[in-house]
């Protein structure tokens, strides 16, 4: 504990004594983490928007012509019991026609050639899970097609696949960018701590000759690295908060549709940057100090 307190004091003194190089490193770490935080935030917003848009995503089950009311009721009960669906809505032939007329508006004349209502009655089934996997939806649709009384099942397959691709691209982007930022921040801290270590080489040599353990020699440098990471993370989180607040409050003035994409960020979003900064910088510092030989 006393060694840790000594290391803490030494690290704080060094932070102040070597303020310019430390400041530059803190800012570099801060910018790196801010880029990552921004990308994650944008992804979170896109993901949230996708989930909102796909909230009512479901299947349309078209029924066979001339199905009895009893058969329709049996199917309805079956769908209601299915745990994958949150909502089951019956649309009769007449309702379908009315809806079609409403949608066609002035183009209603295209229906004049039909003597009977050509539209089938159907069930609109809404999935419980938001943005379900395309393979899952396909499997479900195939399963329903096999049922008695079901003529066909339709859903926005291409639309669903596109949403999933977009979501996947964002996730992969975060992994690659996260990896790149991790390497960059670790190297920046590595370089700085290496310089600080060489500047205090005489002190390190003297400590070794006096009988200091490796742990005693290393700890102040590791603590300094952690401080650099935490400060960089705090700068990143503060900048993100400022930028996000600006977009939320001022953004709609310039781009009204932006409010449809932006979700309020919880406070917990601001914590990972300092923690990530500390971990990355600790790793960089560890390698910078290297193996201490006597």
């Amino acid at each position, binding site marked *: 504990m*006393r*060694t840790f307190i*000594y290391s803490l004091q030494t690290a704080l003194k060094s932070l102040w004594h070597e303020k310019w190089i430390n400041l530059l490193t803190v800012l570099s770490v801060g910018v790196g983490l801010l880029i990552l935080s921004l990308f994650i935030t944008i992804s979170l917003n896109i993901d949230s928007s996708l989930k909102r848009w796909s909230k009512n995503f479901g299947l349309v089950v078209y029924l066979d012509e001339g199905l009895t009311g009893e058969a329709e009721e049996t199917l309805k009960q079956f769908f209601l019991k299915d745990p994958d669906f949150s909502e089951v809505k019956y649309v009769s032939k007449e309702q379908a026609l009315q809806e079609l007329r409403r949608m066609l508006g002035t183009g209603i004349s295209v229906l004049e050639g039909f003597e009977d209502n050509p539209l089938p009655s159907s069930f609109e089934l809404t999935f419980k899970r938001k943005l379900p996997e395309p393979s899952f939806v396909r499997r479900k649709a195939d399963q329903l097609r096999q049922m008695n009384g079901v003529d066909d099942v339709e859903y926005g397959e291409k639309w669903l696949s596109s949403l999933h691709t977009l979501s996947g691209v964002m996730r992969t982007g975060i992994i690659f960018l996260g990896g790149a930022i991790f390497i960059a921040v670790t190297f920046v801290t590595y370089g700085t701590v290496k310089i600080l270590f060489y500047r205090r080489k005489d002190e390190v040599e*003297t*400590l070794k*000759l006096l009988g200091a353990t490796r742990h*005693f020699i290393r700890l102040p440098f590791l603590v300094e690295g952690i401080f650099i990471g935490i400060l960089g993370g705090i700068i990143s989180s503060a900048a993100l908060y400022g930028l996000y607040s600006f977009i939320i409050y001022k953004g709609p003035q310039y781009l009204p549709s932006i409010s449809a994409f932006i979700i309020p960020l919880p406070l917990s979003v601001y914590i990972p940057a300092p923690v990530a900064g500390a971990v990355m910088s600790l790793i960089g510092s560890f390698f910078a100090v290297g193996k201490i030989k*006597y």
Partner: protein
Amino acid sequence: MIQFSNVSKSYDEDVVLRDVSFAVEKGELAYITGPSGAGKTTLLKLIYCAERPDKGQIVVSSWDTAKLKQSTIPYLRRNVGIVFQDFRLLYNKTVFDNVALALRIHDMPPKEIKGKVNDVLKEVKLAHKAEILPQHLSGGEQQRVVIARAMVSRPTVLLADEPTGNLDAETSKTITNLFREINARGTTVLIATHNDSLFHGTGRRVFHLKDTHIEKETIG
């Protein structure tokens, strides 16, 4: 306390020590002398493991240095106080902090450190300069700070490498007296010097290092 048995050391082709054997007893004050470049500093470095012998055995207290792992070397050094030829003081730390550093590495409580450092600074008559940076001290005073740092943890062995190298006769006498006082308390002291006047008339053993080996052993 310090025992060399057939120790050899060379740097590339340059042989510095060849089959050196001698022993310094517990509680003894002894000298190693020889011309510049005779290998006195190397010999001391072998004792505190800053260098490793190519051949032979060195035993310090109960430590066989040849068998020491890297991670154990600090614990040997804590038992060996060293007065370096180039002082090795930290010029961004006060006299007090320079001396205290030797105790901080022992993880000693700050209160205890304060008491011990103040005591040892009184012994070397530098208590009034505790808060001064070393660069504002004379050569003799800096040397006394180094001795205080070497002594503060009460090591069993004290090594001094040319401790009066750059000092005037009067200051050298003060430093020599300090070593005698330290030895009188039971610490084994080995001083490497090329200055004959330091050991003349002391009645102590002197090992003469010449041409890579101990040429003779005399009484000063």
